[in-house]
Structure formats: C-alpha cells, structure tokens
C-alpha cells in the first residue's frame, strides 16, 4: 500500500525562483535563503519519495476570475511551467501520477471534500519554486508530483480547519491506494507578507515563529485559528499559511521535526520552512 512518509512546508516567493534561475543564489542577499535548505536537499536525496502531493496556490495564472475552484487536484500526466508574463521558468516539466490522482479524487470527494478535477493546467511559481528549493536544478524532477491547488486569492479561502481535515482525507486516500509508494505532502506559501496597499511590506516574526511551533506540536489547536487572525497579523497574503495545515493534517499527530528554518526577507516576504517525518 502507498504510505505518507513525511511532510515539508516552504514559502514559494517568486523572487527566489528568479534568483536561482539567474545565477544569483550565491549573492549576499540570497545566500542565507538557500543555505536554509542545504539540510533539506540532502535529506530529500536520501528519502527519494515516489510522489509528492504539492499543495500550493495559483496566482492568477491557470485560473483567471472566470473560474475559481476552492480546492483542485491536477490529474494530468504532465504540467508545464507557466509563462507568468516574462516567459516560463527554465525548469523541467512536472510529471504527474494520473492513477493516484484519480484515486485520490474518487476517495476524497466521497469523503465530503469536493475537489475540482483539472486535466490541463500550467503550474506557476507557487508549485515550481518549492521544487527548486528542495531539488535544486536537475535535468528532470526526481519524483512525480500531484498538484493540489487551493484558492487563497479570492477571499474567503477555505478555513484552516477545513484544510487540516482535507489533509486527513488525503491521507486516507493515499493509504487505500494499492501500490508500494512513498508519498510526501508539501504545504507551500506564506509566511507573513502583504503585497498590497499602504501596509505592504508587513512582516510578523512573532506570529510566524508561533505558527511554526504550533504547526509541529499543537496543530489541532492551530487549525481553529480564524481567517481574521491571519489577515490582521500575518498580512493579506499571509493567509496562504492555511495551506500548511493540509500538509500537517496528512501526518501523524506526533511527528519528528528534522529541520526548521526562518528568514527575513525574501523580496516582500518572510521565508519559513519545515521538514517533518512521520514517526
């Protein structure tokens, strides 16, 4: 049977991807950001997951205002890096796992989570920057990826509680798939940031570090934090952090924390990163 072995969370700031793509990762501004992932790239090379369920949000790329699914699952065989206005990132095409994705949709929808099934979709920096941070710059991504897109652009996004429960449903789905697969769940986006209005540039280290701690050690309680607390304390775009709860819901109640990293700033954003293993 397939099993969930580990979870990863990371910010997905587009400027991080641009820094890597343009050979700037050793510059003094960026070096500390990439250094925060040194452990994780080595750990990932040892873990060799077969599939990553990659929870992220689209940033007005694949989904315009014509259609805004709250939760969507990518069921295609491959997903191309999107042209976000300045050409696609020079990264490999993302290969999916259509059989597992279809199984997850079948299972999770019957488990009361109404995922939208997407059979054609380009993926933006929200999905490809985490892959770059964890795998570097390979010729091909070393595992299959099932994109799980969450609306956090058009308010209201799903609640933290709903996200946490979806994580549990994803786990039930994975564990009922009849194939010997190691599966990781990644939650991306965040941490505190606000990209708009006179309050742009918001960073809240206290909120972020508390969130990291509670995500690891008291996720049940953290999942009950209402939207307004995220928006007020972590900024209008800090609400992306609800996606991390999907990752956490898919893991055991008790986890082993392998790595924690926090850094300010990357462009407009606080960078946070966790590597958690199931016990």
């Amino acid at each position, binding site marked *: 049977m397939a099993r969930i072995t580990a979870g990863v969370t990371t910010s997905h700031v587009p400027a991080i991807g641009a820094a890597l793509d343009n050979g700037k990762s050793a510059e003094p501004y960026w070096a500390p950001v990439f250094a925060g992932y040194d452990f994780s790239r080595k750990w990932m090379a040892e873990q060799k997951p077969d599939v990553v369920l990659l929870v992220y949000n689209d940033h*007005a790329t694949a989904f*315009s205002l014509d259609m805004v699914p709250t939760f969507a699952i990518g069921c295609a065989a491959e997903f191309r890096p999107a042209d976000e*206005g300045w050409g696609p990132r020079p990264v490999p095409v993302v290969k999916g796992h259509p059989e597992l994705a279809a199984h997850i949709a079948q299972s999770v929808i019957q488990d009361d989570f109404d995922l939208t099934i997407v059979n054609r979709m380009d993926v933006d920096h929200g999905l490809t920057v985490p892959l770059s941070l964890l795998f570097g710059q390979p010729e091909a991504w070393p595992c299959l990826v099932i994109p799980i897109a969450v609306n956090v652009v058009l308010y209201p996004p799903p609640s933290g509680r709903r996200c946490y429960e979806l994580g549990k449903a994803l786990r039930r789905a994975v564990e009922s798939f009849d194939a010997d697969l190691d599966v990781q769940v990644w939650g991306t986006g965040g941490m505190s940031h*606000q*990209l708009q*209005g006179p309050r742009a540039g*918001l960073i809240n280290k*206290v909120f972020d570090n508390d969130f990291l701690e509670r995500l690891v050690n008291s996720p049940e309680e953290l999942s009950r934090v209402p939207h307004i607390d995220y928006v007020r304390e972590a900024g209008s775009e800090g609400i992306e952090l609800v996606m991390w709860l999907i990752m956490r819901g898919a893991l055991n109640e008790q986890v082993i924390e392998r790595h924690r990293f926090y850094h300010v*700033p990357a462009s*407009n954003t606080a960078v946070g990163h966790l590597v958690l293993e199931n016990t």
Partner: protein
Amino acid sequence: MALKKPYQDIPGTTIFDADMARIGYHLNQFCMSLMNARNRERFKADERACLDEWPMTEEQKQAVLDRDYNRMMSLGGNIYFLAKIFSSDGISFQAAASTMTGMTQEEYAQMMINGGRSPDGTPATGKDTAHG
C-alpha cells in the same frame, strides 16, 4: 442580512472578497489579457484603445493609465492580476509594492532588510525587533 466583514477595519489593507471580485471582474480580466505577448505589445502601443475594449468603468481605466495601484484595488483589482500590468512595464513586485506605500523603492527595500513593517503599519527602522 448583510454578512459580517471583520477585515474591513484593518489599516492600509483591501481584502479581495467576492464582492470586490464582482466589481473588478473586467479590470482583472483585462490584466489577464496581458499574459499574452501580442496583447502586451498592443497595450504598450495604445493603452487607452486597449482599455476601451473592456467594459470597465472610466474610473478603473483612469487608475490603470495612472498606474495608481491603491486606486485599482479600491475599484476591485487584485494584486496578482494587477501584477500583469507592472510586469508588462518591466517593474518588479517590490518596486510596485513600494508605490502603494508612499516610499521610494530604495526606502521600501531597506525597510524589508530591516525586518519589514509591523501589523500596525510601522516600518522597521533596523533598531526595533519586536515584529521585525
């Protein structure tokens, strides 16, 4: 009965909710059209003519022409859609964000290096560390 919107009193912040998405639908879809290189060229050649192809309000069109991002957001624009405009202009996210705060790009970039802005709106000076 009107739904509660507890986020409306957050200083310096416009939440892009379903009502704003309704008001800003054509403005945001115009922005999406700039994902296409040919449309970007047409827009650069004649901004007014391109905007007139969309059923947007005159206020929305003028805000685009003025590159007044705060105004665009107050009229239903969302930052990820509006990003297509400043990307077409060759301006970075950080530079565009600075225009919404009344700071120069240099001042804004320095504030971020100092630790950003606290939730009450106060920029970090590099000396305080409570939030930044």
